[in-house]
């Protein structure tokens, strides 16, 4: 039986050339290419998870503006393994973004983008762009209220591009407004256009890896000299190279296996992202937010000064993209070791800090009003009748609490007013409420007689001294109660 199978294998291998096709896997690579080198293959494995889970989801998903939401409900709630598959696709995307980020950071810090691997890096940057575009279009295919409004926001952002902005916006919407054409074009882009580009670029990227070889770990004091590098690399491989498969590849397999297990566990135990309300643009209680991998960009656009916002919105991604694409063109030789390239460490470190901080801000979005703010409790108001009580009610009803914190309750868009009476006098409070400020509407025209006085009366109780007094009274009462007991 084994003999027969071997005969069949030999025949197939001879006619199909399978061994020849797989031979690049056995190419000789530097023996020190160990655990730092696993992120590229992990990214590829995450992409394969995306393709597999995406194809499976497409068996039930209908890319129609009117039916997609219902099919997602069916996939999530009724289809066997549907929720798990959606989870796989979501966490697979997250893993892919993380792994491609780690791969890029490792390549950058190891100086592996230098001669002769400039185009390997450049094709990788294109793949990073495609991955982020896949993430964004994928979020929109989760065709709920957030997705529908995110399309509008994307179109409005595109509308800022000089000259062609309006056309690009209409292209994104598939017309003048969200409608039947919107989802199907994002589906086509997400399922056909971008994956097609990714397959092509992954093929090119891998071809370049085989063509130029896996970069050896950098050694301080051994700079890249384009005139001699190739000969030195060949010599290194002759001296100490190992076949990639299986001597080095086993680490990739181990990490990829762990990655798949992590994706599957997250899909099973955490589950897919919850579907928001239906994609009905007449439902105005929506709060569109990008998925986590673009949340930092949302944070950036929210924090920059308004007057330069449009330029940053358009210019920042272009500048970052151009910088990443052309890094190896002007920096293709010299030291590769991170210890001799402090600016490289600083850039990588600052990028991580910047993206992390912006992500944190985006996650908490203190610039957004808090529409869930509840009326202040009696403990915070410290009055049950009279103008202070009425003022506290008005503070909620007039939307002040949406933007201002009082003793930890409310929104964070405006200043914390817990102790505002220590900072502003009666007259200043009146002026501020009536006339508004830089980021505050003028309430003068909309307040009825008496309402201004009540609001000011409430705000005048927001003092350190009054709160301390209250806390002391509370402490004394509780001590007395404890003594009595």
């Amino acid at each position, binding site marked *: 039986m084994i003999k027969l199978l071997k005969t069949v294998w030999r025949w197939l291998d001879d006619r199909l050339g399978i061994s020849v096709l797989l031979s690049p896997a056995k*190419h000789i690579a530097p023996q020190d290419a160990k655990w730092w080198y696993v992120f590229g293959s992990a990214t590829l494995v995450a992409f394969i998870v995306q393709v597999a889970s995406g194809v499976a989801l497409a068996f039930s998903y209908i890319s*129609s*503006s*009117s039916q997609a*939401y219902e099919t997602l409900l069916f996939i999530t709630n009724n289809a066997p393994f549907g929720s798990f598959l959606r989870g796989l696709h979501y966490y697979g995307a997250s893993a892919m973004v993380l792994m491609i980020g780690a791969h890029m950071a490792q390549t950058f810090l190891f100086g592996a983008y230098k001669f002769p691997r400039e185009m390997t890096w450049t094709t990788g940057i294109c793949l990073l762009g495609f991955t982020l575009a896949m993430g964004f279009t994928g979020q929109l295919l989760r065709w709920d209220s957030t997705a529908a*409004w995110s399309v*509008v*926001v994307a179109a*409005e*952002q595109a509308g*800022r591009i*000089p000259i062609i*902005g*309006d*056309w690009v*916006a*209409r*292209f994104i*919407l*598939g*017309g*003048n*407004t*969200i*409608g*039947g054409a*919107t*989802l199907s074009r994002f589906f086509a882009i997400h399922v056909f256009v971008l994956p097609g580009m990714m397959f092509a670029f992954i093929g090119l990227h891998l071809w370049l890896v085989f*063509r*130029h*070889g896996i970069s050896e770990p950098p050694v301080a004091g051994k700079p890249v000299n384009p005139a001699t590098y*190739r000969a030195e*690399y060949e010599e290194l*491989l002759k001296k100490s190279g190992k076949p990639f498969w299986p001597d080095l590849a086993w680490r990739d397999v181990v990490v990829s296996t762990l990655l798949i297990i992590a994706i599957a566990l997250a899909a099973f135990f955490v589950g897919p992202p919850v579907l928001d309300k239906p*994609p*009905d*643009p*007449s439902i*105005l*209680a*929506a*709060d569109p937010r990008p998925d986590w991998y673009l949340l930092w960009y949302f944070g950036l656009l*929210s924090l920059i000064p*308004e007057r330069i*916002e*449009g*330029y940053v919105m358009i210019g920042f991604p272009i500048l970052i993209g151009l910088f990443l694409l052309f890094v190896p063109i002007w920096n293709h030789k010299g030291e590769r070791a991170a210890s001799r390239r402090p600016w490289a460490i600083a850039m990588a470190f600052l990028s991580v800090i910047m993206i992390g901080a912006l992500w944190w801000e985006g996650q908490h979005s203190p*610039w*957004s*009003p808090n*529409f869930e703010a509840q009326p202040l409790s009696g403990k915070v108001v410290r009055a049950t009748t009279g103008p202070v009580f009425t003022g506290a009610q008005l503070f909620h009803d*007039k*939307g002040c609490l949406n*933007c201002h914190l009082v003793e930890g309750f409310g929104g964070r868009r405006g200043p914390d007013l817990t102790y505002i009476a220590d900072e502003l006098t009666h007259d200043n409070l009146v002026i501020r409420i009536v006339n*508004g400020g*830089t*980021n505050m*509407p*003028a309430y003068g025209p*909309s307040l009825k007689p008496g309402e201004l006085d009540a609001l000011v009366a409430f705000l005048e109780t927001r003092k350190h001294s009054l709160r301390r007094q209250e806390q002391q009274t509370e402490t004394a009462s509780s001590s007395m109660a404890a003594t009595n007991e």
Partner: protein
Amino acid sequence: MNTSLVESSSVPPTETPQEISRRRFFEKLSIALVGLCTAIIGLPLVGFIVAPFFRKVPEKWVTIGKPDDFQIGKTVAITVTDPSSLPWAGVTAKSGVWLRRVSEDSFIAFSANCTHLGCPVRWLPDAELFMCPCHGGVYYSDGKVAAGPPPLPLFRYDVQVANGEVQMKQAIVPISTTL
């Protein structure tokens, strides 16, 4: 490692100038034909994809209710269905509009899209303000910017009272933001 798969083609030394010329001709012919094939397939394809740019939407008045349905001084959310929507648009053919009855025969219809980045603004009736959930843009009841990043007032749709009905000109998403 560094060898290319395909050696650069070179003309055999035995070929005559006529044969070389013939080869160049076939080269150019083949490239031209590939270009022609690309155009035959590509132009309709691109035209199909970019067609929405050029789709003219006829301006239509849609009825949104009778005047008595709306109280003077109140702002309410109304739902407008795009009359030119594609048949499979489903709920996405709807759009939300804030309608304010200013006086007996005067109405203002505001686009629900914040002029900053298009998020749906909410109406706070007690505060008489529109507020955006995304970046905190605030507008007064007449749509003028009260605070925050919006560069322009809320977009207004044309409204008319005709034949005892309040009518609004077809709702589209206004791409209002500029650099």
